[in-house]
């Protein structure tokens, strides 16, 4: 009995490992298919969310990531709420006790919850709050300097 339990828990861990591997493989493949391939010095630098990989670890973080973080937290918490819902509410005994009402109630509750969040997300999307906040760049107005910028960009693109 005891060994069986151990085996069961190990198999869960195995499932997690396989799932993790699959997840990373699939996402890498999808990115491979989707992204454009222009190898230049700048695009080949390893990076994480626009942060410089080399330098002080205490560097400032772009404030515009706040929006991403906020959305992540929102939907992360949503998922945290859905786990107990799936485990506790999907109780066969309770369902039988209440004569089938339990199942429908919990299902509808979860749907209302997810739909409301989805409605909010769609609204925010439509209001263009999810977009990367645009910052007005004050380019120098002198012609010569602008020409230099263009030359530099061309050089980078050629490489």
């Amino acid at each position, binding site marked *: 009995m005891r060994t069986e339990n151990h085996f069961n828990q190990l198999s869960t861990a195995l499932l997690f490992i396989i799932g993790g591997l699959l997840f990373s493989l699939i996402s890498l493949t999808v990115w491979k298919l989707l992204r454009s391939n222009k190898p230049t010095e700048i695009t080949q630098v390893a990076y994480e969310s626009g942060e410089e990989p080399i330098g002080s670890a205490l560097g400032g973080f772009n404030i515009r990531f706040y929006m991403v973080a906020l959305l992540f937290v929102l939907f992360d918490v949503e998922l945290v709420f859905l786990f107990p819902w799936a485990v506790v509410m999907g109780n066969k005994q309770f369902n039988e006790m*209440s004569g089938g009402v339990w199942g429908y*109630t919990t299902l509808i509750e979860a749907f209302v919850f997810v739909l409301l969040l989805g409605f909010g997300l769609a609204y925010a999307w439509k209001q263009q709050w999810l977009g990367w906040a645009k910052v007005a760049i004050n380019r120098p107005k002198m012609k010569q300097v602008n020409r230099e910028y263009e030359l530099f960009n061309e050089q980078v693109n050629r490489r």
Partner: protein
Amino acid sequence: MQEYIQVLGVELGKFSGLLPELLLLIVSLLWLLPGFSKGQKTNPIWLYSLLIPIAGLVYLRWFSAWKGQSLGYGAIHFPETSKYFYLFTAGFAAIPIIGFASRSWGKNGFTFQQGFFYLSAIAGALLSLLSAQLLVLYLAIEILSFSSYFLAASALNKNASEGGIKYLLQGSAASACMLYGISWLYGITGTLNFTHPLFIEGLKMASPFTVYMALILVLGGITFKLSAFPLHVWVSNVYEVAPMPVVAFLSVVPKVAMLGVLWQLLPAIYQAIPQVYQLIGWVAMASIIVGNVTALVQKLPIRTMAYSTVSQAGYLLLPLLSGSELAYSTLLAYIIVYSLANFGVLIILENYGWKSFTFSQFAGMAKTHLWPMLALLVFFLSLIGLPPTLGFLGKAGLFLVLAEGFQALKSTFYLWMGILALLNAAVALFYYLHIPYQAWLKPKGFETNSKVPEMPISAKTWWPAQILVAIFIVILVVGFFWNSWL
């Protein structure tokens, strides 16, 4: 657990009793739908569309049914004493809609987003009045709070976001305290339902110190919405940055709802520990004194109004010191008196473009604006509580309640409360009469040639004028006849 689950179907069927409020929450989502199309411009006339769900709600709840049956395993109840609080909450929420023109809601006028948050704030306030369970109460207050945070920042400029964020941070701290206090009460009593006999029994058994701690934490969340003393700091900030209709809403509707909540919650606690009334008394007295003293030293009328509501919140708490019939009717009367005069002052300040005036800019205004100044004088007299106006009834009622409490309990606490409240009513004379003093007694100075454009009430915005006249008549005429009849 088993007996709860077996009656799940029956309990769900009872939820039709909560249909009006649930409908309001669902219908409020309709005001978000225009956001899905490209055009964000609203017609000023859409502002009045907010009245439809409010009227529907009052009709469904008030004229068709006030069911006594509790639902959700006793988490929602419909006590008879909450009936009038309910009506006042919904009714006073309608006045800022008709009392202010669309342009008062922000730079581009009223927006549909504001409509959504306005309606959900009302729904939250009403649900909090109906909740008999602390967690449901907390959720209802959160619905009210989150909508208020957006409304306060809905002018969408730099100052408004700053004020809104401050309001949000203080509010989050207060609601966190409240949640912590609720967990204490649950730990002490083993139930969240404050109408349950177990709740009172549990409070009696526990050590008073623990109960006081938990109560202070819970009251923190409630006094924040009530804008009473320990958590009143947000008021002046919000008054300065928020659009005037929102200010009018926030200064009345959450107060009425929270007073209704306290009226349900406090009897249970008084039953267990009668000395708790002293706690409420201290909160009330502290907000009266702090609000008054801070209002005295303000330079801007709008900030004076902000701090004066803090002291008014203190006066509104005084009837809660006792649970008698007289206290109940006095509380309701004082809510009407305070709300009407408060709405009147804010409507005049906004519609004549005097929101950001300093006191000295009002000098000699009575000659150029006789009627608005006369109305302001009456509203201020009513807020102070001087005899010819309706305000006197409210204040007189408060002192009667305190006298009754003194007689019943023979506690000098009530006596001191009465004396301090009376003294503070005299202090209120100075700051409330500052604008009328400048307007009626000071000569028109050079400073009055301000560049602030005047926005007189025109034929286009006839609703504000009407509501103003109505409030004026109620306060002066009704007050006069009622006083002489007494």
